[in-house]
């Protein structure tokens, strides 16, 4: 088991193997991601029952929660890739950083937008300094910082390595941000409304949520693979194996 994992790690660490692997996997992943997202969202929009407190506005959850979850997972994944890139100077990890950041930022923006729109019917306003919305706003800022840094540095490798360091620092920071923002929210209670619903979700709502979550995560994976391929194609455009591959 362990040796298989190690072999995988080394194989996927080589751009050549990764490129072949993604050529085989991508078509299936595209289909699966689109089908799961579509099924999850349509199920949530049209077939799941209404929430007895919030009415139909709660249906935003089927896009909001998956986007927020995937944005957070993506940031952590970027930090892990950054650590690997810095410590082992692994090429694929550098490529991954560049591949994860754009879609991660988009998902953070989606989570914020949907959260704000959901806020209007629920809290009566588009923006509340709620702990979760605030954390997501800071997460978006962190993503934008990584993207801005990569854009500012002309050299690809140097930009990726700088982004690696920034995202490692950022991941350490995210943990503290989460804790500090919760503390901050409790400090100023009264000025904010808390929408922490601890009630358990009935299965008719939970299942479509899980399906759309799987769909969004897979779309993220698709986006990462496609962007990583673009990056490999750009970096290795002069190598023979790639010219034979395309």
């Amino acid at each position: 088991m362990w040796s298989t994992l190690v072999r995988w790690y080394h194989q996927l660490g080589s751009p050549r193997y990764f490129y072949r692997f993604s050529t085989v996997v991508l078509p299936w992943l595209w289909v699966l991601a689109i089908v799961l997202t579509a099924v999850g969202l349509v199920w949530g929009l049209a077939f799941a029952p209404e929430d007895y407190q919030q009415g139909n506005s709660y249906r935003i959850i089927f896009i909001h929660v998956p986007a927020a979850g995937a944005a957070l997972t993506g940031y952590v994944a970027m930090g892990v890739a950054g650590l690997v890139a810095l410590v082992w100077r692994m090429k694929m990890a550098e490529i991954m950083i560049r591949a994860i950041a754009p879609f991660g930022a988009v998902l953070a923006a989606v989570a914020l937008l949907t959260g704000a729109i959901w806020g209007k019917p629920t809290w009566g306003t588009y923006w509340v300094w709620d702990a979760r919305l605030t954390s997501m706003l800071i997460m978006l800022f962190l993503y934008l910082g990584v993207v801005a840094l990569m854009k500012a540095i002309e050299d690809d490798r140097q930009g990726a390595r700088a982004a690696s360091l920034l995202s490692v620092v950022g991941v350490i920071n995210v943990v503290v941000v989460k804790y500090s923002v919760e503390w901050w929210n409790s400090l100023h209670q009264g000025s904010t409304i808390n929408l922490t619903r601890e009630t358990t979700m009935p299965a008719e709502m939970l299942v479509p949520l899980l399906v759309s979550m799987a769909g969004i995560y897979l779309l993220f994976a698709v986006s990462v693979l496609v962007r990583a391929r673009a990056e490999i194609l750009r970096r290795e455009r002069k190598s023979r194996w790639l010219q034979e591959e395309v």
Partner: protein
Amino acid sequence: MFLASLHRELLLVWRRPAEIINPLFFFVMVCSLFPLAVSPRPALLASIAPGIVWVAALLAVLLSSESLFRQDHDSGALEQMLVAPQSLYLAALAKMLAHWLLTGLPLVAIAPVLAYMLHLPASGYTALFVGLLLGTPVLTAVAAIGAALTVGLRNAGVLLALLVLPLYVPVLVFGAGVVIYAVDGLATDGVLALLAAMAIAAWTLAPAAVAAGLRISSGN
């Protein structure tokens, strides 16, 4: 070796006193803009004083950190530091310490005056002072990482702010929050201990990150 480079850094800044005084002026000016922009009512100012002082201090540290490595980069001293046999970790630590002693510490010293001008209740002073004393080192450490990553880039200023400001959130929250705690008569030890822990963590990890950042920025 560490003391020698610290001595060098301090001496360098000492020859250009504007580098110490300008951030201080900036700090004072930003704080005085708020009563003009919001209202001179003491009750209102008192309630937002912790936030104003902390945000202004944070911006002052951020702005002054942009030049942290620029001169060494331009003069080629940075290249020498990178290839020198001495530890880059210690060199980075010396730079950070010099920066904090000459920018962070004066800010902490002058903060009570500004707090007074903003009508902060007397019960908040200790928390503000100790909080800044523990928090400004974190601000310096994080800014140093950003400065190391952006050294040599054109328009590094705004980019540096984009990278560093979101990383400042926890310090700002706890630093300004602990003053509110103190004014409300709650115990501040726990939060101050947390700030101290953050300062220790930042100063052990940041020099390594700064060293790595300088290596990346110089392309080796």
